[in-house]
Every structure is written in C-alpha cells, then in structure tokens.
C-alpha cells in the first residue's frame, strides 16, 4: 500500500474553485469564473491521470486526512483511496467533467447566472470525487448525498419556472427514499459486526470481515443497499426522477447522465462486490430489475418527441444493462459499460445541447429536421455516438453491450438475455429515429429559428469531437478474446479477480451475430419510418400502445394516485384534525375539568378557621395512618 498526500487535492481543488467563485465570482466576472472552474477540474484530471500512471500494479494508494467521527469504538476517517476501480472512475469523472465544463463556457455564455452555474458544477465534481475516492462506506454516502444536493440545485437552476424547481425537489426526495434503504443497510452492517466486536465501515476491512456475517444478513444488507442504488441510478421503481431532471441546463444533463450521479449505484455495487457476490438472491433480483428497467425504459423512449427525453430514457435503459451485468456478477463488464456509456452519452447530450442552442431553446424533435447541413460537426459527432449507443460493430457500445449480453447468455440466464437482445433492437430504433428526425429530411423549424441556425462555436464542438472519438476507441480496451483480448479485465483483475470465460467462441460469435442482426433491423425500421425520403416523422401514430408509451405508462400518475395523495391526506388529517382537536383538545379538556374542580375547591376555601382546622387534623391523621401502615 502506498500513502500519498496528493490524493486529497483531487477533490479539494474543485471545492476550492467552487468556494472562490461563490464568494468572489461576481467580482471576478463571468468568463474568468468559468475558466477558473474549468481549470480546477483540469487540474484534478491531471492529478488523477498522474495517480493512474503511478498506481502500482495491484496496489492501493491511501490518504488519511483526519478522523471525521469517533464515538465509542465507532470511528470513521476522512480518508481517500485510489485503486484500479477508483482510478477508472476518477478518469471518467474528471475527464468527462472537464469536457462538460469547457462546453459550458460556450453554452452558458449568455446566461446571467453563469457564475452560480459553475459554483454548482464544481461542487458536483467535488462530491462525485468524494464518492469514488472515499475509503469507507460512510464517506461514499457523503458523496452520494452530495451529488443529490447538486442535482437538486442544478435541475432547479432556472428556478423562475416552477416546474424546474418541482423537478429538482422530486429528484432529491426520490433519491432520499432510496437513501433510506442505503442507510439502513449501513446500520445493519455496523450493528451486526459490532455485536461481534468489529467496528468498521472501511472497504478493505469489510472485505476481510465479511465472513463474520451470516448469509441472511448479507442478503438483507445488499438488498437495502441496492434500494439505494435504484434511487441514485434510476432503476425500477425509483427511476421517475431522472426523466424530469431534464429541466436543468443541458450540460448538467450530460454530467448527471454520463459522468456522475447515475453511475454511483453501479460503482457502489462494484465497490462492495465482495458483499454482493455472496448474496445470490440479491444478485438475481438485481439482474431482473436491471433487465426489466432496460426494456421498460426503451419502450418509453420509442415514442418520446422531446430530444432530451429520448436520451433520458435511453440512460435509464443503459443503466439497466449495467445492473444486468452486476446481477450476473460481472462487475468488470458493468464498469466497462459505465466507461463507454460516459463517452457516447455525454456526446449525445452535449450534441443535443448544441442543437437546442442553435434552435433557440427548441426541444421538440417534430420541429427539427434537416439540420445536417447547418451543423456538420454536431451532426457527425452525433452520428458516431448514435452508432455507439446502438451497438454498431467496432464502436464502444458494441464491445461493452455485447460483453454484457454474452455474460448473461453464458450464465444461462436465457430469458434475461432475450430481454436484453430485444432492448438492443429498440435502442437502435429509437436512437436512429432521433437521428433522422433531428438531422435528416426537411427542416420543420419555424422561419425565425431557421434564420438563426448556426453551428456551435469551437468551445462547444471540440468537446463533441473528443467525445465522439472516445465513443469508438474506448471500447477497444475491452475487446473479446476472439479479437485481441481485453486490457480492461486485466486492469481490474486486482479488484474483481480473474474473469472466467464460459462457452465456446463459436457460440459467442453466434450471439454477437444475432445482436447485430437485431440492431440492423432496428436501424432499418427507423429508416423506413423516419429516414426514407417521403417519411412523415412529425405525424402522430395512433393506437393504445403508442399512447401508453408516450405517456410513460402513467407511472407518475399512478404514484401520485397510489402514494402521494393518500400520504398527503394522512398528513392533512393529522395537521387539521388530530393535532388541534384530539391532542390539544385533550389538554383543553383537562383545563375545563380543572375549572370544574376548582369550583369545588373554592367552596372548601371558606375562610372559616374551624373548617381549616378540621381538614388539617383529618389530613394529619390520614398521613399518620399511612406511615403506620408502612411500618407494619
């Protein structure tokens, strides 16, 4: 193990920049403040890269800052660690984060509150870094809640629209519901180990002590932690906040969906893989939830008309794939998909931001079309990223998604594999539907928007191009054995152990071929319906299924009806009936009774000395009798 004081600066620099901008941002000015924020993330990225480079082959670097909380035998340190897994996450968070920061310099240039935006953005990076660098579960939870706070602030960034603020609230509260599971999981872990004389939440120590826990305890703990993950990583049934999180400025969506926040749940399960691996029941549940979420979200994405909503549901769906991998115990594959997804999803979101920017805020794809010639750089990067998410051969998404599907298949989970396969086809369909609706065909924008159509400035298109390159080449790190083999698995081997290879190469090729066929079918169908000359992309198909999908299965409405309203009613009942009438009523009842009794009492206080004397004697006799009784 290596110790290094360097580590703390990786999260600290963005925090400092955030603080400087918070207090002096107004004085510094908009552009310099933005530049400072970006430079800070750049510095973190450089440090992260250095640490990545220095990291010993199977080693861990640690940086103990100080004891955070100590109570009795319970002790939690503010302490950071970097191992192979964290190093990967660090590069994703700071690398993609840096590109998003740079992009935002252009995107937010005309916003009056640009300084505030960068304060939040830096804070977001800070908490995400704490999340991936913390060497214990509680520090991870700090980052976990911290990104929740930042998403709350950023989703509601344009607060004057009440809908944005409501979306921010929803994000935070839904996340908190998941967090309840998370924190209860932590409590069981601490309490069970403490009962056996071990007090720890350190990952390294937990991995050693895990044998003290009974299988039932492990299942319960992992189940509760997974509830936390369904909140943060937007899985069934807690995914509802993520699509609404679109309300924030588009770079924020890219940050939330690609580099940070939603990947936290996957990271947490991978970090605690030694615990999850011992809980087959939880893993089975995770696999089912993952596959179901992937499918369910994809069916919603098929019909959405808001450019960002399509991407939002595609994120939910892709996260489902990641959890499917986790459920198979293929943690390396899950993190690999986190990695590749970060590139193409960031590219897509920033690309959609570029489109929205060019159209003066328009997000409805029915009012787009034909943008190809107006914004070639945005278009071509979007094409690459779309190919990647659809899983076209030799793009990043091809390698990572294929790996997950193959892992599922080779584990014998044929039904889940089938769901994943169909979802891959739907993904290809809805993404190409989007590509055709936005960039191909006739331009359906109004005249005013058409007149202002422009390609975005270089500060926005350069990040797009870098991300597009990443959307292809990052996948090559994790090529299957029949090609040139996986550097990825090798890198993560110290964490997850050697990846076992089941099944024959011929089967693997067959499965891949099948996936590609389904993907091709999806793309072709999208072309027929939306891309072919003469297609009517803006026409509204009818039919019940379409309506259900367009309205997202009415999940929000169902939650509102089945949960929010009854709950509010109960609260109202307590607030307007129980508290004022029952509880306070009892008090007032006592008061009334007292008043009644005091009338009698007043009668006794007659002022007649003889009465008093008689009562005094009676009282004294009674007391005497009492004590005599006690003595005997």
């Amino acid at each position, binding site marked *: 193990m290596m110790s290094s004081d360097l580590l703390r600066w990786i999260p600290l620099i963005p925090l400092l920049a955030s603080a400087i901008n918070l207090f002096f941002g107004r004085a510094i000015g908009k552009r310099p403040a933005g530049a400072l924020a970006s430079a800070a993330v750049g510095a973190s990225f450089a440090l992260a890269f250095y640490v990545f480079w220095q990291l010993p082959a199977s080693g861990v670097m640690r940086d103990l800052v100080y004891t955070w909380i100590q109570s009795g035998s*319970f002790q939690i340190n503010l302490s950071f660690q970097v191992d192979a897994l964290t190093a990967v996450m660090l590069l994703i968070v700071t690398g993609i984060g840096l590109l998003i920061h740079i992009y935002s310099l252009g995107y937010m240039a005309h916003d009056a509150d640009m300084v505030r935006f960068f304060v939040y953005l830096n804070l977001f990076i800070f908490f995400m870094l704490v999340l991936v660098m913390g060497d214990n579960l509680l520090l991870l939870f700090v980052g976990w809640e911290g990104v929740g706070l930042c998403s709350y602030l950023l989703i509601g960034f344009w607060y*004057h629209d*009440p809908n944005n603020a409501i979306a921010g609230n929803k994000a935070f509260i839904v996340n908190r519901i998941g967090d309840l599971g998370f924190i209860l999981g932590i*409590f069981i872990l601490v309490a069970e180990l403490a009962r056996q004389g071990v007090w720890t939440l350190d990952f390294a120590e937990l991995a050693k002590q895990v044998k003290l826990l009974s299988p039932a305890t492990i299942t319960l703990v992992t189940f509760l932690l997974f509830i936390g993950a369904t909140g943060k990583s937007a899985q069934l049934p807690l995914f509802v906040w993520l699509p609404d999180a679109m309300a924030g400025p588009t770079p924020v969506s890219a940050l939330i969906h690609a580099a940070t926040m939603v990947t936290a749940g996957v990271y947490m399960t991978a970090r605690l893989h030694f615990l999850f691996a011992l809980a087959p029941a939880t893993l089975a549940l995770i696999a089912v939830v993952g596959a179901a979420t992937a499918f369910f979200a994809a069916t919603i994405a098929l019909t959405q008309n808001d450019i960002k909503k399509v991407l939002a549901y595609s994120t939910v769906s892709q996260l489902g794939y990641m959890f499917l991998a986790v459920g198979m115990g293929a943690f390396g594959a899950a993190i690999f998909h986190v990695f590749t997804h970060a590139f193409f999803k960031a590219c897509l979101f920033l690309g959609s931001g570029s489109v929205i920017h060019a159209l003066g805020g328009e997000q409805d794809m029915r009012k787009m079309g034909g943008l190809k010639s107006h914004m070639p750089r945005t278009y071509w990067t979007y094409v690459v990223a779309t190919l990647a998410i659809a899983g076209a051969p030799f793009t990043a998404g091809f390698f990572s998604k294929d790996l997950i599907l193959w892992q599922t298949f080779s584990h014998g989970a044929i039904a889940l594999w089938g769901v994943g396969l169909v979802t891959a086809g739907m993904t290809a369909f809805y993404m190409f539907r989007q590509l055709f609706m936005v960039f191909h065909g006739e331009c359906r924008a109004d005249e005013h928007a058409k007149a202002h159509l422009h390609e975005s400035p270089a500060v926005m298109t350069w990040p797009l191009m870098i991300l597009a390159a990443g959307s292809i080449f990052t996948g090559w790190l994790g090529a299957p054995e029949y090609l040139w083999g996986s550097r990825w698995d090798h890198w993560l081997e110290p964490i997850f152990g050697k990846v076992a290879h089941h099944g024959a190469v011929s089967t693997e090729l067959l499965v891949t071929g099948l996936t590609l066929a389904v993907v091709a079918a999806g793309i072709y169908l999208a072309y027929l319906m939306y891309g072919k000359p003469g297609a009517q992309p803006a026409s509204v198909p009818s039919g019940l299924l379409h309506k259900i999908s367009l309205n997202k299965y009415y999940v929000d409405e169902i939650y509102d009806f089945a949960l929010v309203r009854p709950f509010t009613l109960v609260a109202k009942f307590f607030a*307007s009936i129980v508290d004022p009438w029952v509880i306070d009523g009892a008090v007032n009842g006592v008061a009334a009774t007292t008043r009644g009794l005091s009338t009698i009492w007043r009668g006794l206080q007659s002022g007649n000395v003889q009465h008093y004397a008689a009562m005094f004697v009676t009282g004294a006799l009674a007391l005497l009798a009492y004590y005599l009784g006690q003595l005997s």
Partner: protein
Amino acid sequence: MMSAQGFGDLTLLLAIPVIGAALLLFLPRRQSCALFTVALLASAAAFLWSLKIFNRFDGGSGAMQLVERVAWMPAVGIQYLLGIDGISIFLVLLTTFLMPLALLASWSVRDKVKEYLIFMLLLETGMLGAFLALDLVLFYVFWEVMLVPMYFLIGVWGGTRRIYAALKFVLFTMAGSLLMLVAIIYLATRHAQMTQALTFDVMQLYELHLPVEQQFWLFLAFALSFAIKVPLFPFHTWLPDAHVEAPTAGSVILAGVLLKLGTYGFLRFALPLFPDAAIALMPYLIALSVIGIVYGALVAMMQTDIKKLVAYSSVSHLGFVMLGLCALNMQGVQGSLYQMLNHGLSTGALFLLVGMIYDRRHTRLISEFGGLWKQMPLFSALLLVVTFSSIGLPGLNGFVGEFLILLGAFRVTPAWTAVAASGVILGAVYMLWMFRRVIFGPLNNPENQKLQDLNSRELIILTPIIFLIVLMGVYPQPFLSRMQPAVEANLKRILAMPAAPAAVQIEVSGEPKNDGR
C-alpha cells in the same frame, strides 16, 4: 472529585447578565440605542467568559469541574452547588453564543425596549443556572425562574394571540414541574432516611439505590416535567402556539436553548437518578420519540405558516434527540447531545431568517412568497444552507448527530429506528416544499418585488451560525471528543445498576482505535 470551593468562574458567568440587567435599570428608557448596546455588551461578555471557562475545561475528564459549593439553607441541606462537565459545557456555550445574536436580531423591537432587554438577560441567567446547577433545589429554582421572563417575552412582545400562548406555555410547564418538586423532596427525604444526610446534591443522590417501584413514580414525575419541555409527543401542543406568538428572539431562545433543558434534564437527572425505572420504561419513551419524529414531520408538511412549520419540525427533531438518549449507548447519547447543539444552531437560524422576512413583509404565510431568490439572493443562499443543515445533509452538522443517534438506536431497537429513519425522508419533503414555495418560482407578488436583501447587521447575526453549521459537519471531533468522557461516566451511572437488563449493553471501555499514521 468535587472539591468544595466558594463562588468562582461559574458564578461570575451567571452574574454577568444580571449585572447587565441591573445597569439597564439605571439607563433612561428613551435611549434605546444605549440600552441595546449595554445589553449586547453584557451578553457578549458572558460569551467571552464562557469561552474562558471552556479554555480552562479539561476535555479529557468525565468528572464535574469548576465545582462551586456554598451552603445556602444548611438547615434543610440545600446548597448553592454549581459544576460543569462535558455534557453541560457545550449547552452553556450554545446559550451564551445564541444570546448576543438573539439580541442583535431584536433590533425591530421598539416597544418597552428596556424591559424587553432586562427580561432577555434574566432569561439567560436562568437558563445558564439550570445547566450548571447540581443541587436539585437550585436546579428547580432556575428552572422556574426561566418561566417568568419567557412568559413576559411572549405575553408582552408577542403576536395577536400572545396571551393565550403565554398562558399555555406557563401552565404546561408548571403542570410538569410541580410534580417534579414533590419528587425532589421525596427523593431527598428517602436519602436522608437511608443515609442520615439531608442533601439535594445530585452527585450524592446518584448513589442512592431506591427500589424499582419507588423509582418508577419518581421517574414519571421528573419525566413528565422534562417531556413537556422537550416537547415529547403528545405534550407538544404548547410549542407551536408559543413559537408563532413569540417575538423572533424569543423563538430563537425557546427552540435553541429552552427545549434542550428538557433533554438535558433527562440526561442529567431523570435517567441516572432512577436508572431501573428508566430502563423499564424505555420502550414507551422510544415509542413516543419515534411517533413524535414522524408525527411532527407529517404535521409540519401541512403548515401554511413558515414559523409553525419550523415549530413542528422541532417536535420531529427533538424526537431524534430523545431517541438517541433512549439508546443508552455511546453513539446514541453522544449523537443526541451533538444534535441538541445542531438543532439549536439550525433551528435558531431558521427562526432568525423567518424573522428577517417577517420584519420586511409582516407575514409568514408561505403563499405570500415565491421567487425570492431573484430579489434576495443572499438571504436565499443562507436559507438554503440552513435548510440542508436541518435536512441532515452529510457535510453539514445535522448529519453527524442524526447518524450517530440512528446508529446507536439501531443497535438497541432496529424496528423503531427504521421507522424513525423515515423521518429523514419526511424532513426533506417539508423543508424542500417550503424552500421551493418561498424561494423558487416566479416573483409574482408585487409586495415582494421591492424587498431588500440582508443588511450587514443581519449578515453579522447569521455568519457565525453558518460557519458553525459547516464546521460541525466537517470536523466534529473537537466537540465529540470532549463530550465522550462525561457521556461515558453518565452511562456508567445509568447502566452499572444491578437491575440493568443484559439486553442493553454499552462499550464503556470505548478505547479509540488507533490506526492511520
């Protein structure tokens, strides 16, 4: 352990506000500026003096320190007995810290300024005395003395229903404390019977082992008095009325300090004096605490008046504090003590902030506001920090306390704790609803369009609180480590009793692990 001394530093601390109040008597009532200055200086002097006491305080010891013992009524064994330990020191600091800020926040008081300030200073002495007294009768005297200034503060400078609220406040408190007085006298009599020494010295009374049946009634008498003060569900209904009617500074002190006297009373008196009864009755206390957490939060959710919302949130938060005490282990009790400070800071700050917009708009109805960020960004940003402190966001003070409380409680009663933990969700719901409706959205109400942001006086009030909210979240050790020995000693007292059931264990030998560099 307790070397008898005469009057000393602690007495001076109690005297400083009284001296300030006496000085005010000689000032002409017209010169409100001079009056304010004197009162502020007195409270600031008390704060500085308490810092000096803190400096002298040995954080490594769990014993009573700076003990002052003077015979008061020797015939009946009543002494003037003060002392401080790791439990009371931070509550004393909280009191002296909040008082100058509360006075600064009273700038808008124009009516009978002189009396107002005198009452505030006397209130400070009352509260400090209650935290420092180690003689039960002396404690009782301070406990009752506090009532008088608070009664007048609500009844004279309060809102429209101030008389009702003030009376309710006093009657509730009196109802509890009379029984406590009877119990105190009975306890001392029993002690005299068994040891031939008539004393109200709590350290000596700790040694008395009464039969459980007798402890039972005595505990109930003490507990009722403290439960009303906390307030524990279902004794809370005086609180919203008192808060809504009280002037801003009154609310700050009421929520910030006065409620803590209830939980402090449990920790200092009710639990260690009657440990067997306390342990036997613990399931009921736990139930009431958890019900209070959820109930308070649900009722808070439906409030239309911001101040009432904060008042009910106090019911919920104090439920957490009680739950931690009931855990009777290091994490629970230490967390609970820490949470007393956190609640004092964050709820104090909330009442201050509410007072600041009330001064501007003369309303506290949530529906009257909306979109304030545009007009008052500074106010909004500070309210944001305090809101998240109250929600218990990690990194701010509230999380440390809540986490330790829940952890401690979970080790004793997992099911109830799971219910209590749902209060963490509810807390986010009502606070964020309030914040959204007040701060976010369009700035539609024309009344709000000319609101001024915080002025420098208001910033001076809030900055130290915000600073502590962050500090205590990021670096709680300086506080926790000084509390630990005293909490340990106290837990020993409660649990070392022979009748203590095996189910409740503590790690009294909580030696800190020494890993790291």
